[in-house]
């Protein structure tokens, strides 16, 4: 209601002349003036309109002013309506008291003094206006509180939806660090309940090597109000630790007072594994470069020495004994040459990749190793589902397979079975089409503690017999073709099986090269 809104003033009198004179007196107030000639008529008006002030003659036929006031008062809507009585006769204080009890607010005696009537009516009109304004304001406030409550509820719902849908684990704590809330993901990952992790209950989810630092770091933040960040392993319900990057930030109210802490834990295990792998690759690459440089520096004098012994061995001045020494030296030099050639493994005999049948290369290798199959008593099982035609350098492939087959044979000194398969694989997911070669043996197997280091340079399980470069080089070659090399070794009931699987992408159109299924031959 606006300040200037007109209010209604109801004038009740059975004498039209009096009504007219009131009208004349009150017109200048600028309010709405309504006339009623009887109590009944006045009640009708009251029921239909919001009246600020009722100006009423005490003595009226039918129903006198007091009676009417009583009726008006009974209606809850009119309990606060101001009633001014006009009395032609002198009223005793007792009469006035009766009037007040019935709800009158003021009296005016006849003869009416216009200024007095105007002033009194005006006061009550203004009062009414103010009350209406106050009511409106009150209503508005209530509506705003209601809206705000709804907003808060909505905001709360939105927050919960958000907090439960983010990939992070999230939590909130009071200013002293007591946790108040965790999101659903926290419970899903840790498999705990709120009660489990209350107080210091969450400590048990931390790795023993990290928990002290984490607790100290958080305590420092509770004390200083500064944000916290750390990376540590957190125990999942599957019993495995995963690495999380965790942060806690203080939340302040509008007065700058710290009201709570909001924290998140982001799973960074995969990034960490990728970074670790990258570091390892870089280390290996650096090692490869160093090996290459050293090999080169060694190769020059090595050639000279080899040539010198070659000449010495055949020199006519030497007796048999000296010649034998020279021959031994030559043999040992050949071993050194072999090692440096292995680390110079990316040496290619052909200078361009050519179409190569993987199956044929494997057959060459198996034939070369034929003697060892017989000596060790190893049975051969071949299954070529494809000729495995790819663009490659045959010598490189030969080196890979010679290494795998050689290792397998060495793992079976007292016999066993070697199974070699070649098959073409179709494109699947982000894996392109290609050739998969597997070499499986029933030999001594790979110890789990060796598994991780198998492809590292200079790692060998064959003591002085191995250079520790075979698998490292094989992996390097396979990776050059964007391929992969992996293995599985299982041990059961005293026997074991080890399978190396090489995948080389980019199979060429299959040709009916007569290399279909061959098996059995050993």
């Amino acid at each position, binding site marked *: 209601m606006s300040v200037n809104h007109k209010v209604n003033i109801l004038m009740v009198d059975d004498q039209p002349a009096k009504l007219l004179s009131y009208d004349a007196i009150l017109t200048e107030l600028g309010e709405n003036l309504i006339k009623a000639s009887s109590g009944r008529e006045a009640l009708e008006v009251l029921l239909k309109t919001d009246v600020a002030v009722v100006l009423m003659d005490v003595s009226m036929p039918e129903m006198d002013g007091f009676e009417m006031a009583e009726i008006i008062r009974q209606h809850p809507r009119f309990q606060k309506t101001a009633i001014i009585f006009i009395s032609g006769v002198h009223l005793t204080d007792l009469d006035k008291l009766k009037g007040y009890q019935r709800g009158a607010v003021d009296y005016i005696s006849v003869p009416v003094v216009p200024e007095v009537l105007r002033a009194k009516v005006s006061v009550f009109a203004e009062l009414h206006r103010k009350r209406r304004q106050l009511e409106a304001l009150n209503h508005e406030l209530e509506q705003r509180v209601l809206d705000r409550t709804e907003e808060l509820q909505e905001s709360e719902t939105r927050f919960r939806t958000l907090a439960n849908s983010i990939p992070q684990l999230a939590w909130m704590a009071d200013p002293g660090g007591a946790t108040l809330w965790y999101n659903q993901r926290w419970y899903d990952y840790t498999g705990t309940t709120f009660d489990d992790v209350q107080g210091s209950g969450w400590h048990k989810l931390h790795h023993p090597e990290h928990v002290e630092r984490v607790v100290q770091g958080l305590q420092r933040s509770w004390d200083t109000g500064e944000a916290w960040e750390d990376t540590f392993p957190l125990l999942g319900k599957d019993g495995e630790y995963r690495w999380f990057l965790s942060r806690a930030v203080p939340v302040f109210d509008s007065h700058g007072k710290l009201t709570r802490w909001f924290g998140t834990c982001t799973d960074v295990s995969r990034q960490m594994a990728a970074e670790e792998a990258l570091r390892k690759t870089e280390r290996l690459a650096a090692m490869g470069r160093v090996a*290459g440089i050293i090999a*080169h520096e060694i190769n*020059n*004098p090595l050639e000279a020495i080899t*040539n010198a012994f070659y000449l010495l061995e055949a020199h006519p001045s030497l007796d048999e004994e000296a010649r034998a020494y020279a021959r031994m030296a030559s043999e040992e030099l050949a071993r050194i*040459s072999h090692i440096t*050639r292995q680390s110079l493994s990316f*040496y290619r005999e052909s200078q361009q990749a050519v179409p190569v049948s993987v199956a044929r290369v494997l057959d060459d290798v198996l034939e070369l190793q034929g003697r060892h199959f017989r000596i060790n008593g190893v049975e051969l099982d071949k299954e070529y589902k494809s000729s495995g035609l790819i663009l490659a350098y045959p010598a490189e492939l030969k080196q890979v397979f010679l290494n795998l087959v050689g290792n397998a044979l060495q793992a079976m000194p007292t016999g066993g079975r070697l199974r070699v398969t070649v098959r073409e694989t179709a494109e699947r997911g982000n894996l392109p089409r290609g050739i998969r070669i597997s070499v499986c043996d029933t030999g001594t197997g790979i110890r789990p503690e060796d598994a991780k280091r198998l492809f590292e340079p200079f790692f060998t399980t064959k003591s002085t017999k191995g250079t520790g470069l075979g698998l490292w080089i094989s992996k390097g070659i396979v990776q050059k073709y964007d391929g992969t090399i992996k293995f599985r070794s299982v041990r059961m009931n005293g026997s074991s099986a080890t399978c190396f699987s090489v995948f080389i992408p980019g199979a060429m159109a299959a040709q009916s090269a007569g290399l279909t299924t061959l098996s059995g031959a050993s």
Partner: protein
Amino acid sequence: MPDSKVVILCVDDEPNSLVLRKLVLQKAGYEVVTTNSALGALDVLASRQIDLVLSDQLMPGQTGTELARQIKDRWPSIPVILISGVNEIPPDATIADLFMSKVEGPVMMCQNISDVLVKYRS
């Protein structure tokens, strides 16, 4: 026994390597001329009959492949073999008739030379 008239020009900046390689080749029955740089090799080639060039790859000044390119430009009928201790085969190695490793040994070296010569004669 190869033709005794075959003359090999041997190029290497390392004196010991050069002398020993020369001796191995002489023992295999070749006549050997030596020089310690690509420029020296070009001088020799301009002044006398050479049947095959056996050059080191990494030398001060011009490399073996650079020397091979110039030989192929000016004397296309002379075979060139590069012998190297390097890890990576240079991309332009195909300019030579053969790119071999130093550690393949004296027997393999002589075999490679004789193979290339046979190819050129036929």
